[in-house]
């Protein structure tokens, strides 16, 4: 057996035992209680619904996981989604679909590059930089769009979402594929391990000769690009690009990452945990909708669950003497 496999397994052992298993347990408890409360919850239809609703926030949460693993944060993803959505909408008027998507993704990546350089090279606080970028991107979304939604999106865009492969919707398949790639990247590659090392102890990573600058910027680039990918799925579902798209998406993404067990100080967390976090968030929302709970109460429910999950985690860590 190779060292790779060994170390991968060890990492899985070390981290899952502590975090994801617990969060998976929480996800199951929520799923079971919701299925007891609502007969619709466990129907195939609803399960696909949950998965479908997980796609957009799930994609953004991958980028957010990378950023948070380095010890940063990206508050701009929602606004970048909004802005790149408008870019996509405008580009679709001029060029074929693949090129238009490429345009949007490159725009997102470019915005991420700026945030990344400002934080990693100039050492500005990620919170403040991405807060600024958040405001700028949203304002540009309004300016580019002329304050109105772009609704003449080509019908062909909907193929992106509504094509089934082996009976699975393509957007769900994309999400699964993205998580598999991200997991492999973080576990088996130099870059992935460097991202963990940077978040865990940046100074030590630098002193060991790791390329700290590059791998600190990369997560922001990917986060921006993935925000554009996420909004592409939204637009292909709605066939409309609104400058308000992605509003407060950063909060859902950060919540998913944190529920998934990542530390906001960096270095700790896994992509599987994030996936579980996303599912927990979406399930709660879906379940509350099924139960007919007022949408105004949903924020309270989700907020309480985030805080409770973290509190339980902290209490367990105290117990084990950390």
């Amino acid at each position, binding site marked *: 057996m190779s060292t790779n496999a060994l170390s991968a397994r060890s990492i899985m052992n070390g981290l899952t035992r502590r975090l994801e298993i617990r969060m998976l347990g929480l996800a199951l408890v929520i799923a079971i209680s919701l299925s007891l409360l609502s007969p619709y919850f466990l129907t195939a239809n609803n399960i696909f619904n949950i998965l479908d609703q997980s796609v957009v926030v799930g994609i953004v949460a991958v980028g957010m996981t990378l950023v948070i693993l380095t010890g940063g944060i990206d508050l701009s993803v929602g606004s970048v989604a909004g802005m790149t959505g408008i870019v996509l909408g405008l580009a679709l008027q001029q060029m074929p679909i693949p090129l238009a998507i490429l345009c949007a993704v490159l725009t997102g990546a470019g915005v991420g590059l700026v945030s990344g350089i400002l934080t990693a090279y100039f050492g500005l606080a990620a919170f403040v930089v991405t807060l600024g970028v958040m405001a700028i991107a949203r304002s540009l979304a309004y300016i580019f769009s002329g304050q109105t939604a772009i609704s003449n999106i080509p019908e062909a865009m909907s193929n992106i979402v509504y094509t089934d492969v082996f009976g699975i919707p393509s957007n769900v398949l994309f999400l699964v594929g993205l998580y598999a790639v991200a997991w492999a990247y973080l576990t088996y590659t*130099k870059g992935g391990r460097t991202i963990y090392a940077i978040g865990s102890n940046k100074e030590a990573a630098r002193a060991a000769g790791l390329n700290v600058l590059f791998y600190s910027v990369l997560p922001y680039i990917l986060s921006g690009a993935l925000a554009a990918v996420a909004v592409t799925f939204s637009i292909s579902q709605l066939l409309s690009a609104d400058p308000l798209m992605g509003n407060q998406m950063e909060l859902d993404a950060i919540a998913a990452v944190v529920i998934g067990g990542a530390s906001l100080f960096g*270095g700790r967390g896994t992509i599987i945990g994030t996936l579980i976090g996303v599912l927990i968030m979406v399930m709660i929302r879906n379940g509350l909708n099924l139960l007919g709970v007022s949408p105004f109460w949903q924020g309270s429910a989700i907020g309480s669950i985030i805080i409770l999950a973290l509190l339980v985690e902290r209490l367990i860590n105290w117990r084990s003497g950390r």
Partner: protein
Amino acid sequence: MTSEQPISTDIVLEARGVAKTFGKTRALVDAQLELRAGEVHGLLGANGAGKSTLSRVITCHIRRDAGEITYRGASFDAGSTRDALRAGIALVAQETSLAPDMSVLENIFLPELGRAGRLSYGSLRRRASDILGRLGHEHALPLDLEVRRLSAAQRQLVEIAKALALDANLLIFDEPTASLSPSEVERLFDIMARLRNDGRALVFVSHRLEEVFAITDRVTIMREGRTVASALPTSSLTQSDIIRHMVGQDIGSVYARADRQGVSSDAPVVFEVSHLSAPPAVRDISFSVRQGEILGLGGLVGAGRSEAAEAIFGLRPRAKGTIKVDGREISPQKPADAVRAGIGLVAEDRRVQSIVPDLTVRENLLLAHIGQHKGFGLGYAARNARMKHLIQSLDLPADRLDANLLTFSGGMQQKVVIARWLLLEPKILILDEPTKGVDIGTRASIYAILREIAAGGVAVVVISSDFEELLGLSDRIVVVSDGLSIADLPASVLDEEKLTLLAAPRTSTARNTDFLKQLTHDYGGAGVWALLEQDEVICLGAVQAKDALETGLQPGKASAIGATRIPVALQQRAPHFVTEEAGDRATLLLPMRSRRGNDLGWIGLTLPTSADLPPPELIAARVAALHAAD
């Protein structure tokens, strides 16, 4: 130099059976301590023996797991450092707990700032100068200066004043002399003696034995978390008694340099640093290392050694200077560049600069490999063989490679960090305080490893403030003081005393150099300040008037007495001018001592015999006056 007055028998504090475990490390197993009023109590032990942990348990920085502490006759169980301070127990820590941007006055009364009600700066000012007066430093410390502008010694003074402002009657000094010059140490001891005579109990944590003998009345010795000798009168002990207690064996074996012959002088120079400067800490440092050589970089904490290593390694910008590896100049801008050139650095602060806590032991070991790996994947397989070899030869726990590195002892952590670099097979390995926080057993094995890799052809640079370690380990020692490399000497001609003198900050040696300047100004000729051995002389300073005769001595260099131009005088060491065989020059040599009687070397004045030789008594009186006021 022990107590001038009998120690009272009032027991101030008694600790019994104190235990403390951090994770899997048992820092304290069964620690005892008994302190009386009016004594300086030495708390001794090797690195990792538990001295600092015990100190911090007493001052409530750390909660004990078990054990009894009685303080002034009552069971003592304060919850926080604040409670301990209120009870009169204060810690004068090595790394001070001062607020750097606040003034001296504010720092002295920092604990009072948290008290309700109005503060009167006028009365605080009066109390502060009263306290400093009691310490004999009334005017030495401007009360309005910001603390970050102070020297290490001055900060310590502020710490002590802060403790006295709370009327502490038990003060723990945790390695207070680590970054002080010899004269500053004497001043500190003076203060400690005053506090003792006031009836306070003082704990002096140290591993510098000569200081222990100079200041303590009784000592408690710890080893591996246990008290192995409790409250023995210092006067009843010899150095070797103490070492035996500290180590549990004779220390001679630790360095095991018996069969070691020096590196041959025709071994190629692998690593050469010249005129390195990285302001403000590094001003002008040069040294070179031959293949297979262990070079020691000695000096006090803060002399600029760690900063020099960081500048070489690309962790700190350089202003000037060249770095050559195998004769080829390199200019690393970041550590990755230095690593590519074949340099490895085991940094001083393991926790901050080396360990990545969220990665496993294995990944920590492979971290530098990841930095150098060109591919997209991990490439661990390519290092498998070498890794197996290292795990075996460094005695790393092969079955716990997936654990968290922080659960291992300091020694094991250090071995993993060293192995991280050895995995890359570097040409040059720089180690900054490699045995800090490492237990004595592992220290010996780290020394053995360094020997072995040096023998394998690696140029090894060791930075250490532990002079005994430096002397035991190095082939050659470059002494750094105030950012300058001031001496480059074979370890065989040095001992701890000489290193202490050489390493003293320039500010404290400036007086001696100024004195040489005055001498040569008044009488002409050449003045030297040197250490004399049987047949060797180490020059600490040299000043020449115009057209003076050569003495053949160069600052920072050792020479055989026979090879100098004043061999007869250096041999005779007579209290009068001694004329050389050629008859052209005469030299007066006078020993110089500090007020406490410490040997500070010799002052020499060489004049042409044709000149009017001044009366030796006159010069002797001036030499004697030089350090009388310390």
